[in-house]
């Protein structure tokens, strides 16, 4: 991952600039996001009630989130009745503590994992590693990313940033196979290596797509069969589930099963859907002896308080907004410095992990609305971004304390202070038409320094330091100068027919 070794949310701007110079990354992103986007569109058009389904899904989520406490209790009671053990984790440390504790008690050495954003979010692999327990990712994309020592760059396609050639080189290097770009050969190599891990693993760790309150069932979707193996071969299955994953009724799954695969991969249905209700009933049934469900809060309940932020919890992690986002399409997931990249990442990262570190992310959007258009649960992401931007500007002093005086933090605060002054001035001008007109005339005089041949070209040097936005604009684009005669001046001369 070269220059993006440890991207953090604080350095989003630098991460993004670095990503833009990586032409392999941009080629891979362009191919993958446009393919996913095309497939999603076709799959959504295969149903004639797509819009209705979106509204239904959102209504189910809204209802659940309004009574989340009740549905979680119902889910817990029913899951326990079916033989599962339910654990509640306030934050990442608690969740990791529970998993590590369970692993220690069982003297586990090897854990197989299926793809799970919740375990990425809490950095479970690192926690297990610190206990001397090996955790192996078994989803092909996650496995590739793990082999490369990287993090996923997409919610459903963890290795979207990699080309076939890069993966081939990685397999040759790490797994010792002869160089090949034959996809079948590469996947069968992964399968061979991973099968041995499944057989030897003490514990299987998975995520959860949906938890059904009325039955205590969890549903996990996948295409590779690795989740089936993760959740059935080892004696112990641990599932980590964000508290927002619960739905009230079993019948609700029908709506989400139509929306999620179509939005995520453009499939009508994933190859596997695992519905797991508690542990096995009879000794000779297949499946693990014990099932532990970890309900993870980690900042989620904070979002419940406000109607605008609450909708963040309706997300079903399909990744459609990433593929549709013009920003994500250019820079990919790593630049966001968060396990949740793209538009939905830009709204949930600051809410989950704190605004002070992630204050750049809500601004990393042109507010084009493509994310809202594709979201299967109709999350108004632009509205959320605007809400968070307002929170950032209003809470400048508070975030200063949170930032703890880091250099980046200080620079950001200084920039924001200047910006606030600029907007106060701007408002003072805009509510006074005469001042607006005078200001326009002033700029018209000042621009003589930079207008050449009817346009403003690249602004550099001292002028760039005086007017950073002008320099930023003109790096790649020319700028139209202010008109010699504004519209209102022309109107005054000749107002009527």
């Amino acid at each position, binding site marked *: 991952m070269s220059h993006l070794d440890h991207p953090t949310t604080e350095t989003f701007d630098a991460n993004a600039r670095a990503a*833009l110079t990586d032409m392999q990354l941009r080629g891979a992103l362009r191919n993958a996001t446009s393919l996913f986007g095309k497939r999603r569109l076709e799959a959504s058009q295969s149903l004639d009630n797509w819009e209705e389904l979106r509204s239904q899904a959102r209504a189910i989520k809204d209802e659940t989130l309004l009574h989340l406490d009740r549905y979680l209790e119902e889910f817990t009671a029913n899951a326990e009745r079916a033989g599962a053990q339910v654990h509640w984790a306030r934050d990442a440390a608690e969740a990791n503590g529970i998993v590590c504790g369970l692993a220690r008690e069982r003297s586990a050495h090897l854990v197989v994992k299926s793809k799970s954003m919740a375990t990425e979010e809490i950095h479970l692999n690192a926690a297990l590693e610190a206990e001397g327990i090996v955790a192996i990712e078994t989803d092909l994309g996650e496995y590739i990313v793990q082999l490369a020592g990287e993090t996923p760059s997409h919610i459903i396609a963890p290795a979207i940033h990699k080309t076939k050639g890069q993966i081939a080189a990685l397999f040759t290097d790490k797994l010792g196979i002869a160089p090949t770009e034959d996809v079948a050969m590469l996947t069968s190599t992964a399968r061979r290596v991973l099968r041995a891990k499944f057989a030897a693993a003490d514990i299987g760790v998975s995520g959860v797509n949906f938890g059904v309150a009325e039955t205590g069932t969890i549903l996990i979707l996948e295409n590779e069969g690795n989740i089936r193996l993760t959740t059935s071969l080892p004696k112990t299955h641990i599932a980590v589930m964000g508290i927002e994953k619960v739905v009230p009724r079993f019948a609700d799954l029908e709506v989400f099963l139509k929306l999620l695969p179509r939005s995520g991969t453009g499939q009508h249905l994933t190859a596997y859907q695992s519905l797991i209700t508690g542990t096995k009933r009879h000794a000779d049934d297949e499946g693990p002896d014990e099932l532990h469900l970890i309900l993870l809060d980690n900042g989620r309940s904070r979002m419940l308080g406000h109607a605008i932020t609450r909708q963040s919890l309706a997300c079903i992690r399909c990744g459609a907004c990433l593929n549709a986002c013009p920003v994500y399409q250019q820079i990919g997931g790593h630049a966001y410095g968060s396990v949740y990249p793209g538009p939905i990442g830009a709204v949930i990262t600051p809410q989950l992990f704190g605004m002070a570190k992630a204050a750049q992310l809500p601004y990393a959007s042109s507010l084009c609305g493509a994310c809202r258009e594709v979201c299967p649960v109709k999350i108004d992401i632009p509205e959320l971004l605007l809400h968070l931007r307002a929170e950032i500007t209003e809470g400048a002093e508070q975030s200063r304390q949170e930032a703890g005086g880091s250099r980046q933090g200080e620079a950001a605060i200084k920039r924001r202070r200047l910006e606030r002054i600029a907007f106060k001035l701007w408002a003072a001008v805009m509510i006074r*038409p005469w001042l607006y007109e005078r200001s326009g005339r002033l700029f018209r005089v000042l621009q003589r320094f930079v207008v050449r041949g009817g346009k403003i070209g690249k602004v550099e040097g001292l002028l760039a330091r005086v007017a950073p936005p002008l320099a930023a604009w003109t790096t790649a684009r*020319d700028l139209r100068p202010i008109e010699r005669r504004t519209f209102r001046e022309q109107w005054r001369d000749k107002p009527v027919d």
Partner: protein
Amino acid sequence: MTTVLNRQSEIGNRQSTMRVGLFVTCIVDQMWSAIGTSTVEVLRRAGCTVEFDERQTCCGQPAFNTGYRSEARRVAERFIELCEDSKAEAIVSPSGSCTAMVHHYIALFPDDEQWRRRARSVAARTFELSWFLVRVLKIDDVGARFSGRVTWHDACHGLRDLNVHSEPRRLIRRVREAEFVEVENADACCGFGGTFSVKYPEISAAILDQKIEAIERSRVDAVVAGDASCLMQIGGRLSRIGSKVQVMHLAELLAAT
């Protein structure tokens, strides 16, 4: 929403002369006045009487989109007041983005029912130009002539906030001697995004370059859009790379004879 639609059909049924207040936008006023004069020309040709309140400045969008709500509110209140002063039946703007901002005004007054009501009633009679011509006046031919191959760029807020999609295309198809072609991903963002374009200029330019590539591939003479800001973004890059493709606002195209 129903009130907006009712209002529109109510106005639409009155085919006679209509009093229209022009909401020219600050960008057009200061930086692209031809869009303003063209809008006046087109509206007059469509049988409207055009009024322009010189007290108008900006709709408040830059502050709203950057997170400065109280500053946006101050500016929005002035805009609402002067719209209320206007006797015009409709307020028309050559900008999807600024029109959409007026439609978003209620978000600025979460706890003030009085202002929300006022904002809603101003929004109900504020229209984007192409929507106004096609949906309200039921006109898709304004007698324009332009010889050349043209395409339409869907500006995001017009497209996704106001649902403007078929209206400009219908208008362009009726322009004499103009050949209309769809450009690949016409509905993809140009990368402008207001302050985004100067906060993250490199990302903005990377997004823009994809748009430029698609435009260049389509071999058009002109890119037409409904927002001066997108046109400044696209046009600024075309100018920098020395392209022969010109950018035009829909109003300019429709005013051409």
